[in-house]
């Protein structure tokens, strides 16, 4: 998967798990990373089809999982997405949709950069 071109070099750098040296984690980190494209696909489809509840659920799960596999940035981004979706749900704030869009792009980019 090719990340979108960007001026900031850091956003293209692959990110590795903080547990990448941990032998008992190797296998499940590989599984997690291998499944990320499916997760991203599911989230982006839910977003474009406006299935907010589904998206909220997926974001919540990714938030819980990312840090466990040593990808704290993914958890943090998923948390921001969850928050934006919740405000979109409640106050329908004018900028909430925009923030959600930014957040899901951010999650997408991080997940694409994740390596086992």
């Amino acid at each position, binding site marked *: 998967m090719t990340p979108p071109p960007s001026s900031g070099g850091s956003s293209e750098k692959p990110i590795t798990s903080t547990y990448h040296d941990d032998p*008992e984690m190797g296998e*499940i980190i590989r599984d997690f990373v291998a499944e990320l494209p499916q997760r991203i696909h599911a989230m982006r489809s839910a977003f474009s089809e406006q299935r907010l509840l589904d998206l909220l*659920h997926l974001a919540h799960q990714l938030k*819980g*999982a*990312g840090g*466990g*596999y040593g990808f704290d940035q993914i958890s943090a981004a998923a948390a921001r997405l969850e928050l934006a979706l919740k405000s979109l749900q409640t106050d329908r704030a004018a900028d909430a949709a925009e923030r959600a869009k930014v957040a899901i792009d951010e999650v997408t980019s991080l997940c694409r950069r994740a390596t086992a």
Partner: protein
Amino acid sequence: MSSEPTQLQSSHAVILVIDDSPDVHRLLGARLKSEPIDLICAADGAMGLRMARELRPTVILLDIDMPGMDGFEVLRQLKDDTPTHDIPVIMLTGMQSPQDKVTAFDLGAVDYICKPFDLTELRARVRSAVRSSRLVQMLAQRAQIDGLTGLYNRAHFDARLKDELSGCQRHARSLSLAVFDCDFFKQINDTYGHPAGDEVLIGIAETLQRECRASDIPCRYGGEEFCLIMPDTPPDDAFRVCERIRQNLGAMVWPRHPERSITVSVGLVGARKPSHELTAAEWLETADKNLYTAKQTGRNRTIITDLMSGSTLAKAG
């Protein structure tokens, strides 16, 4: 002795994880792989409750945030239900919810672990819960076990006889009950000292345990008196068991007093189909009466009552 509770013998604790996220199951599986535990997984609250009741895990790890039945409701039901009431529960919580932790403790959780899991903390908390769970189980078992002989004690016997009797009555299955009493025990204590007396009690206990079947329940009733509950055993079979025990004991040579053999008198009662009329207390009374007769008529013998035929027979050795 051999009555050491099974939970203490097995090195593997069973940990039940109730969490809706497959990632959590996977992460815990990896993180606890090196621990001496068996991890079992439930994907929702209802499945978790079912597995907890059936498998009686050593410790439960319980997610709060689950669709459908949430962790608090699962915890409430675990604590309401006798078989699962004493299983320690560790809640799996998110970082940002202090109120959840308070609620969890109020409902009876012993601890919590924040997600994402910190490896060292996770292992320490799970180990600590396993340790205290085993301690509680051990104390509960110890309260039912006689310290000297390692057999079940009177408290266990009383409860167990009631259970076995009502089970056999319900299913029309046979049941027998024997009371053993060491002959001239006071003399042995007086002549050879209390350590010799203790050795005799331990010897009787070991013989009972060795000579009865796995389904029989030997107990120390108190003093030099022992009971043997024999489920699914008609009186004539029980009689053979008792006679074997009596004869083996009589033939034993005791290191502290090789010149002096030890005998027991036995009161036995049994029925092929126990009627609903007699209570556990009345069964014990009949066995005691037979024991008394055995003592009166020369000791070292078994007196048996078959409750179905109403006949009482004396067999002397």
